[in-house]
């Protein structure tokens, strides 16, 4: 392999190289770059707190390179980690540049070591947790349910405000009874016709339309309006039928009616 020269500088043992290769074959079995790093760190066989991050970075970069030469598709986050570790490696190797911003290589390395140690710790306690006696496997709850008899009583309640709002709702509804339903203040054309038919017999002279309004409908404006409109409509009907004549001298002048007494 041509890459071999590239990594000759790396101080990896044969077993470490073999381990790295084994990893590549099984890359799908890993849960991300951190998992791979944790596996690689095991080859160092040291406490994770004293791990050599530099060595780990090298191992990881080999892992990624090998994966590339073997044309194994690595997920993007493996490559992001590779880039980051390459950066970390350079930071760790080069003397610190005081003008450079951001955390030092050592700080970054320490954090990575912390992450690995924490992940390992979580895996260890997860194993301990699953190793405990478990309900339904090692110890058991009562098999027979003697279910509690549930006596449920429902209490209904309302507040004074509910009550008053309820009442207000009804009263408000009264004040705004549907207009069309309210026949009290409506004088229909049929009523007007009925009223006028017997009356027109006496209307030989021109008489003001308003004098035909029914009693009790003159005062209240709403009633007056309704009665006037109905009487006017009824008058037109009677004119059409040929029983009456109608006239208005000018705009807004009083409307006058008289019997059409066989006149042409």
């Amino acid at each position, binding site marked *: 392999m041509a890459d071999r020269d590239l990594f000759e500088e790396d101080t990896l043992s044969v077993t470490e190289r073999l381990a790295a290769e084994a990893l590549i074959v099984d890359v799908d079995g890993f849960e991300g770059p951190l998992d791979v790093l944790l596996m690689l760190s095991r080859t160092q066989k040291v406490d994770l707190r004293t791990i050599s991050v530099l060595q780990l970075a090298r191992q990881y970069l080999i892992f990624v390179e090998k994966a590339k030469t073997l044309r194994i598709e690595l997920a993007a986050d493996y490559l992001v980690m590779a880039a980051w570790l390459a950066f970390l490696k350079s930071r760790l190797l080069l003397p610190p540049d005081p003008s450079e911003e951001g955390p030092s290589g050592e700080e970054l390395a320490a954090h990575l070591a912390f992450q690995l140690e924490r992940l390992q710790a979580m895996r260890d306690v997860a194993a301990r947790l699953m190793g405990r006696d478990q309900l339904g496997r090692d110890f058991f709850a009562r098999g027979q349910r003697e279910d509690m008899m549930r006596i449920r009583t429902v209490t209904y309640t309302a507040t004074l405000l509910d009550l008053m709002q*309820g009442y207000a709702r009804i009263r408000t509804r*009264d004040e705004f009874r*549907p207009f069309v339903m309210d026949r009290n203040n409506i004088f229909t054309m049929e009523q007007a016709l009925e009223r006028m038919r017997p009356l027109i017999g006496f209307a030989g002279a021109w008489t003001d339309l308003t004098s035909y309004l029914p009693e009790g409908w003159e005062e209240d404006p709403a009633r007056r309006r309704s009665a006037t409109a109905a009487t006017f409509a009824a008058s037109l009907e009677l004119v059409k039928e040929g029983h009456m004549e109608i006239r208005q001298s000018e705009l807004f002048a009083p409307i006058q009616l008289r019997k059409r007494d066989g006149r042409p």
Partner: protein
Amino acid sequence: MSESHQHDDTSESETLFDAPPMGEQERMVEAVLFASVEPVSVRDLEVRMPHGCDAAEALAHLRKRYEGRGVRVVRVGDAWAFRTAPDLGYLMQKETVEMRKLSRAAVETLAIIAYHQPCTRAEIEEIRGVSVSRGTIDQLLEMEWIRFGRRKMTPGRPVTFVVTPEFLDHFGLETARDLPGLKELRAAGLLENRPPPGPLGPREEDEDDDEVIEGQSELFED
């Protein structure tokens, strides 16, 4: 109990050579009876327990141990199970009280009775503009917020409803006359000069959909 204990010591030591001590066996029966969904027969127990165990004797010990306790080992058919002591059955009842808001129909009916008492059902219906269901009246009667008043001296002598002292107590009123009047309701902003907003159709949230359309709100919107 069982026949297996009529043996003398020698034969027992032969057959139960490695059986756990009786105290252990009792524990086993205890755990199995507890965890089992169904009552367990002595045969079942013996199948489960290590070879050489005497389930019947262990069971007898266990029964004795639970005598007079809060739970007992009882026989169910030819099997055994734990049951709570019958005298403690009352502890197994759990009473839950659920508070629910009174329905709108009930609130309105109640309000009408409170404001117009003594009030007949027909009067309530006239004021509400919808028929009042039997259930609504029954509910209010059951809650003891209303009761029957004197019959009205009108044809048919209909019953009337009045509010009760419990009602006054609940709503913190001394008498029904303490209920705020329309003017006060208006001053409190409870009586708006507009009917409650909503489409003309019956409201979906009402239980009593028979309600007549109230207020053609659109007509009065400017």
